[in-house]
């Protein structure tokens, strides 16, 4: 077996050193009735690389691949071009096969990357500090709500109706057990976000207001007034960014006063990967740093006075604080954070701004083309690279129709909000730099055929 170096002679010699007759003797602490005597039934035997590849290729071949056809899906996971060097670099064994940097003298590579990553995320979000990453955007969002509860000692969180429904769903699952009170709603198909309602609703019992920017329907608003009103009530403003590329074009939530900014970093460097692993981004104001969940990397010096980096403020974490920790999180999303950081370094500010402008311009062109189809309307007045299209037919069925024509045309709101008839004719269309003019042509002409 190709991953196991011990030979039968090695095993015999080692058993002799141990003083055991057989390897089964080493398992005598397992009660006899629970010990398996032979290989487990119903499982195949070991296989060659060739045989495994054949099987996995077969499974991969059953999926429609985004890169093979016109592709317009978003809704929290975005397809951007990832430069070749990103995947090459994250596969260096010293990154890929390292552990959490608990021995900093031989983990400065990972640690410096985390320090650079934290700085990149903080600057992108317009915040003072960021952590070394979370599992994904949805769990980062819930952790932010918990953090706001710790800071304000209040339990009522207002969730914008524009927050991704999966994020709402995650928060609801958790809040059921923690006793947090969440107020949430289904979005309305209106041009405006629900910021005015949130400003109206926030009060002295509110721990935080959670608003997605741009929101699930692609709409966006200035958060400044909401931040001011929220803080006046003694609550925190949490902004959620599911498409960080947007922040190359639009103001950051931090600049507009958000206290905590969380997000999904997948769109930079990570790729679609059918939903995971992704990378949760988490940033906040300096004054809240000790209430942050997750790992933090900090700068220091070594015994010779040279700059170096260590994990720090770890007394917030589970391995020291146990039941009093800020979170039970143990890992970060290290390799995805590395991919994010490399891609961001390749882009630089110039590249990020150009990429954002390119996305925005392509989305405008596509939105205008789609709005010319008889019976099709675009909901948004403003958007970045994703907007809501209202069809004269059930959008979920239209998406299936498009897929049968080898076009992955968007995410229907029926998929995200299956119980809401009022949303059933709407779908989200995302246009990134990976969409060509021909892709848009194909979508427009296919929709023309499908619609009555």
């Amino acid at each position, binding site marked *: 077996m190709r991953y196991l170096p011990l030979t039968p002679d090695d095993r015999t010699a080692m058993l002799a050193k141990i003083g055991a007759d057989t390897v089964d003797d080493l398992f005598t602490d397992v009660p006899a009735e629970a010990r398996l005597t032979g290989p487990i039934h119903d499982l195949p035997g070991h296989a060659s690389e060739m045989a495994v590849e054949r099987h996995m290729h077969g499974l991969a071949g059953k999926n429609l691949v985004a890169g093979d056809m016109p592709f317009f899906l978003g809704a929290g996971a975005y397809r951007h071009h990832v430069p070749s060097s990103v995947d090459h670099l994250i596969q260096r064994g010293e990154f890929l096969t*390292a552990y959490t940097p608990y021995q900093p003298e031989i983990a400065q590579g990972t640690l410096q990357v985390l320090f650079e990553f934290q700085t990149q995320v903080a600057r992108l979000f317009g915040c003072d500090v960021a952590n070394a990453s979370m599992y994904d955007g949805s769990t980062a969002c819930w952790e932010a709500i918990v953090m706001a509860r710790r800071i304000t000692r209040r339990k009522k969180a207002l969730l914008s109706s524009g927050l991704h429904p999966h994020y709402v769903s995650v928060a609801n699952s958790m809040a059921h057990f923690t006793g947090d009170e969440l107020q949430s709603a289904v979005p309305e198909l209106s041009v405006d976000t629900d910021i005015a309602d949130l400003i109206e609703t926030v009060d002295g019992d509110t721990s935080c207001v959670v608003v997605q920017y741009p929101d699930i329907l692609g709409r966006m608003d200035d958060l400044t007034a909401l931040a001011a009103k929220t803080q006046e009530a003694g609550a925190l403003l949490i902004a959620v960014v599911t498409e960080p590329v947007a922040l190359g074009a639009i103001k950051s939530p931090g600049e507009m006063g958000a206290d905590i900014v969380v997000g999904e970093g997948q769109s930079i460097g990570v790729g679609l990967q059918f939903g995971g692993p992704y990378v949760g981004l988490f940033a906040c104001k300096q004054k809240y740093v000790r209430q942050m969940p997750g790992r933090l990397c900090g700068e220091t010096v070594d015994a010779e006075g040279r700059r170096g980096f260590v994990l720090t403020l770890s007394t917030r974490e589970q391995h020291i604080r146990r039941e009093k920790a800020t979170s039970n999180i143990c890992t970060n999303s290290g390799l995805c954070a590395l991919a994010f950081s490399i891609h961001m370094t390749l882009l630089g500010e110039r590249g990020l701004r150009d990429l954002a402008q390119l996305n925005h311009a392509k989305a405008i062109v596509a939105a205008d083309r789609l709005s010319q189809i008889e019976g099709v309307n675009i909901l948004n007045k403003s958007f970045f690279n994703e907007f809501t299209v209202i069809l004269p037919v059930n959008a979920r069925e239209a998406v299936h129709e498009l897929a049968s024509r080898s076009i992955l045309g968007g995410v229907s709101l029926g998929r995200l909000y299956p119980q809401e008839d009022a949303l059933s004719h709407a779908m989200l269309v995302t246009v990134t730099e990976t969409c060509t003019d021909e892709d848009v042509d194909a979508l427009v002409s296919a929709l023309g055929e499908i619609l009555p």
Partner: protein
Amino acid sequence: MSMNNQGRPTRSEDVRIQDIGTKGANATFTGNRALILEEKLIFESGSIDRTGVDLPDIPDAKSRLGGLERSETIGLPGLSESETVRHYTRLSRFNYGIDLGFFPLGSCTMKHNPRLNEKMARLPGFADIHPLQPQESVQGAYQVIDELATWLKTLTGMPAIAMSPKAGAHGELCGILAIRSALEARGDAREVILVPESAHGTNPATAAFAGYKVEDIPATKEGRVDLDALVARLGPDVAGVMITNPNTCGLFERDMKKISDAVHDAGGFVYCDGANFNAIVGKVRPGDLGIDAMHINLHKTFSTPHGGGGPGSGPVVFSAALEPFAPLPFVEKQGDTYKLVEEENAEEHHAQSFGRMVAFHGQMGMFTRALTYMLSHGGDGLKQVSEDAVLNANYILRSLEDVLDAPFAPSGYCMHEALFSDKGFAEGFTTLDIAKGLIDEGFHPMTMYFPLVVHGAMLIEPTETESKEAIDEFVGALRHIVAAAKSGDAKLKAAPHHAPRRRLDETLAARKPVLVYKETQDAV
């Protein structure tokens, strides 16, 4: 005040002696040392006007950003591709990884990460598909999830599984929430979760995060859960226990079935932390031990890479009693097609589910890697995996117990990891010094100061992917270092001497945290 009694040094020690390399006679002009090349931060070497990507022309279009244009400088430096490759390649060389050498980090299972796994995960049919694609367009992806689920259920002897938890700790949370849901469903508001004092810190943190009070259960002198104390504490307020088996002392909990029966009799549930499943995969099915829920770290037992701290993946297997409460979404096979059960169709299939834990469906990229690994090993290979892992650990235990205190060795064999204490070192010498000495000898240190039940703990887990020769070399080096610690060799106290950095000042980092780069900061 509660005290630190694990023997972990909490004061940074003054080791500014014996400067090597960067100071004194051996100093170089650049600070580089041949293959070890110092690397600036991107904020020092890059520029906001430099980029490593070429983009197509931007079409003309009037902005629809609603007046939200970002006008201020963001401060994100860029590098050209050539500089980027060099930056990260240089940084990578400051890291230790399994690819480089022996990495016996106890409880973390740093086994070889097969490259076939990486190749398969990158097939466009897995890597370039969107989680919200129409279900008919991703049947192969659902099949991967279903096949992996079947392997895990078969290997554990458990009837149900949740695939979406993102890591081990997230899996723990999943299991505890399912337990709480099951209790709520029968109108039983129990408040306490019992956790052995040797447990990993995530266990109590998870129980607290899920709203439970945590109480410790003591260990016996043999390093196992004290069954009598546990049984005595059971009662109508105890929701369940969280037990790691094999435990963090590297021992199998012989009384596991008795513990499960007692907990069940008292109306509670049994959570098993499956972090150490690597020791028993293919040899023991947790389902036969009365366990109700157990997470499986795919990044430990099933060889997906640790990546410098994640991403992990922590599917949770469930007993029939907890199955109805498992989270959404999950994949169900109906005839020849796979269907995703989500919020919308949960009513008919899974009305008691406690809900969703993550956006989308979990760590697909890890599922493809883990399934590739399982198919490679097969049922027979996985049995050999645990046998070799346990054999290697016992070989280490017997090769070191004459020079290192092994508090639980007299009670018999260990499982996949061997535990030692710092007893017998010269005054002022600690486990930390042993770890730093190993760095100089080219090894990654073992887990130190965990579990907390042993003073100055050293937990050594070789895994099955190490050869006898590699282990012998490590044992030789460790014996040499232990001799230095016992004789009080000052050179060891100042180790590491040859790593890219000497010991780092963690006190400074924590007292005045510098977590992001600032252009105006003074050079330190």
